[in-house]
C-alpha cells in the first residue's frame, strides 16, 4: 500500500503540468471511453495532427488511477486489475458475452487463472453475464467483485 501511495504521489507530480489533459474519464460505467475532446478542434487541425503525429496530451501515465469511481471490495485490492477493468469495460463486456477475446484473457492472466482453467473461467463468466453486467450504469467495482465471486464458485 505504501508503494502504491508513493507511485500515485509520484505520478500526480509528473502529471501536474498536464492537469487538464488528464481529465480523460467521463464516468464509471459502460461507454466510459477516453475521448479526446474534439469540440474545439477544427477538422483541419485533426487531419494535420494525424499527419504529423501531434497530440493534445502527453503524460507519464504509468498507472491511470481509478480513484474517482467506487472501489471494489477489500478482497480485490489488485490495482493493475482494477485499472485494466475500468479502462476496458466495454471490451471486457464484449469478450465475456462471447466467451473469448484478448481483453478477457488479459483479465484471466491478471487474476492468475492457470492456462488449463481458462476455458472453464470463460464459460463461467459468459453464463453469468447478467450478474456481472446487470445494467448500463454498472461500475467497474461491481464487475471486478462479481467476476471474482463467480469464478470462485464451484
Amino acid at each position, binding site marked *: 500500500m505504501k*508503494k502504491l501511495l*508513493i*507511485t500515485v504521489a*509520484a505520478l500526480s507530480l*509528473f502529471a501536474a503540468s498536464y492537469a487538464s489533459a488528464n481529465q480523460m474519464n467521463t464516468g464509471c*460505467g*459502460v*461507454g466510459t*471511453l*477516453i475521448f479526446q475532446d474534439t469540440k*474545439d*478542434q*477544427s477538422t*483541419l*487541425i485533426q*487531419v*494535420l*495532427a*494525424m*499527419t*504529423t*503525429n*501531434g*497530440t*493534445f*496530451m*502527453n*503524460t*507519464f*501515465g*504509468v*498507472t*491511470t488511477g481509478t480513484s474517482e469511481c467506487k472501489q471494489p471490495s477489500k478482497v480485490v485490492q489488485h490495482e*493493475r486489475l482494477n*485499472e*485494466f477493468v475500468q*479502462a*476496458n469495460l*466495454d471490451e471486457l*463486456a*464484449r469478450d*465475456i*458475452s*462471447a*466467451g*473469448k477475446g*484478448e*481483453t478477457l*484473457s*488479459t483479465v484471466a*492472466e*491478471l487474476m492468475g487463472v492457470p492456462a488449463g482453467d481458462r476455458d472453464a473461467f470463460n464459460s463461467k463468466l*459468459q*453464463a453469468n*453475464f*447478467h450478474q456481472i*453486467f446487470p*445494467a*448500463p*450504469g454498472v461500475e467497474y467495482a461491481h464487475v471486478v467483485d462479481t467476476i471474482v465471486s463467480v469464478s470462485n464458485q464451484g
Partner: protein
Amino acid sequence: MRRRGARPFFFFPLLLPLLLLLLLPPSPAWPGTDGYLAELKETAAHRLLQNDRYWDILLFYKPAAGGRKSLVDDPKFFLAPGGKRDPGAELSATLDAMFDDSLSPPARCRFPARYEWLQETLPIDPVRLPAPECPMLDNSLHAINPKSASLIFASGHMNAPASMFGHTFLRLDGDYESPLLSYAVNYAATINRKDNGIAYAFKGIFGYYPGYYSILPYYVKVREYASMEQRDLWEYRTNLTETEVRRMALHILEMQGIYSDYYFLDENCSYDLLFLLEAARPSVTLTDRHKGFFVTPIETLRSVLAEGLIDNVVFRPSTARTIQHKAEEAGEAEVGLAKSLASGDVAPSTVVEGPLPPQDKAGVLDLASDFTHYLYLKREIPKDLYQGRYLGILAARSTVAGHPPESRPLPVPAPPESGHLVSRASLAGGARDGQSFLEIAYRPAYHSLEDPVEGFNDGSQIVFGEAAVRWYPGDEKVRLQRLDLIDIVSLAPRDALFRPVSWKVQTGFATQDFPGGVESLVYVLNPGGGFAWKVSPLGIVSLLAETDLEVSGRYDHSFAFGMGGSAGIARQVSDRWGVLGQARYIYGVLGDREQGRRFTASLKAPVRLSRNRSLVLEGEHVEGPSVHVGTIRITWNAYF
C-alpha cells in the same frame, strides 16, 4: 558539501576487495568524497569520456557548427549552464551533481541512465559514493518491469491519406503474456488547442511546439489507433536483451517532463525514438542514417530493420478491418440483421429466438456489438442509447453458445516496409498531337495511385511537390510542364456497413491547352468530393463532384472557374499491373466561361517491374472549345 561515504566504509570494510583498496591513491581528503570527485573528473577527462558515443546518445548531441549541440531544448535537462553546446562541461557538472546531497530528487534518481553509465564506465565505486534511494524511480521501473521491447508502427487511416506517413512508438514489454499490459512510449508534439490550421502548420514546421516523451498503457494506444482512428498496428518485436531494454527504460524515465522543439518534418516522433533505441544498443547506427530534411516513420522503421533489431512482426488489425472481415464471413442477410441491431431497429431477442443456427446467431450478434461500439466511437450514436443497446446485444450473445465459423483468417496486408521507397524520379517519352516529347520528373514524396500498391492503402494518394520538365525536340522548347504542390486522392469504398466519403484536393501549376495549339502554365486549385464503391470486375468505381479554379493571363478576366464532376475506375488486375480510367467534365461558371469548359478522358496502365521500378502507359484526350488534343506517354519510374 557534506562528506559521505565514510560510514559504509567503516561498517563494511571486509566487503571491499583488498586489491581495490591498494589501488586507491592516498589523498588528504580520503575517505571523503571531494577527493573522489576530483579523481573521477580526472579519469573522465583523461579518457575523453565527453567524446564517448554513449554520452552523445544520452544527451542527444549531434555535430553542429563549432562542435556538438544537443537536440534537447529544455534547460532543465542540462546541469551545466552551457551544457547544450558543451558535452565536457555537462559531464563535469553531472559528476558534481552526483556528489551534491542538497539536490531533490538526487541526481542519480533524476538522471538514472547517465548515472548508471558513468558508474559502469568510470567506474564509480558505490562504497565511496553510495547510491541514494530512488523510491519514485524504483516504483516506475517496478510497474513497467521492462524485459523486452517492440517498435510499433501505426499505418495510415484508410480514408485519411495524410496519415499515410504512419506513426511509430515503442512498447516496453514485461512478464505479462498479454501485450495490452505493456507500456507504450511515445514522442509527440504537444499542440495548442487554440491554434488554427495555419498557425499549427507554421509552428509545427518551424519547431514552435514542444515535443515530449510519454508513457501510457498499451491498451490506451491500441484504442487510440486501432479503434478510434481505424489504423492497423504492426508490432515489430525487437531482439533487445533485458539489460539493453532496462537501460533504455532508465533513459526514458530521465526524459520525463523534458522538452525538445518538435519539427514535423525531421525532429519528429519517429526520429527521436531512434535515440532511445541507440541508448539501448549503442552499437547500432540509427539517428545518423537520417540526415535529410524529411524523416518519415517508414524510413526509420527501415533503418531499424536494416540494423537487424527486429525478430518478428505481429499484425493487429484496426476495428474497421476486423468488422469488415466478419462481415465478409457472414452472409448478406446476416450483415443486414447485424446492422438493424446496431441501429436499434431490431431487438436482440429476435435473433436469439429466430431460426438461425446457433453459430450464425453468434456471428450476427458479434458483428452487431462490434458495429454498435464502432458507431459509438464515431459518435454516431449518443452514449445513453449506446449503453443500453450495446449491453442488450451482449446479454443476448451471452446466451448463445459457440463461435461463428471462420472459413479463413483475416487476410494480413503486405507490411509497410514492403512498399516502394517514397521519392520518385521519372523519365517519360510520348507524343502530343503528333509532336514527340521527352519528360523528366521528380517527386520528393509520397505515393500516387499509379505507384505499386503493395504496402500502401489501396485508393489513397498523397503527392508533394512533384515537378516535371518537358522537352520538344521538334522546336527545341524546354518548359516546366507541371508543378504539383499537393495532390491528394482518397477513394474509400462504401459497403453495407461503412459509408465513407471519398475526396480529392489538388493544387499547383499545370500546363493547359489553349486554342491554336498553344500550351501555357496555369495555376490550378481543384477540390472534389463524392462516393466510391467496390464493383467487380471494375475495381474501385468513384463518382466525384468537383470545382476547378484556374488562374492565368491567357484567360479572359485572368481566371476560369468551373464546376463539374468525374467518374473513375481503379483496378489492381494482378500484383504486376492495374488500370486507372477517368472521365471528367468541367463546365465554366465564372471568369473565362468559354475556356473553362473542358472534357478530359484518360486511361493509364501502371506496370510494376520490381519493388522500386515501374512503368506507366497512358493515353489522354482533352476536348474543349477549339481545343482537341490527344497525348500518349510511357513513363519509367524509379523510387529511392
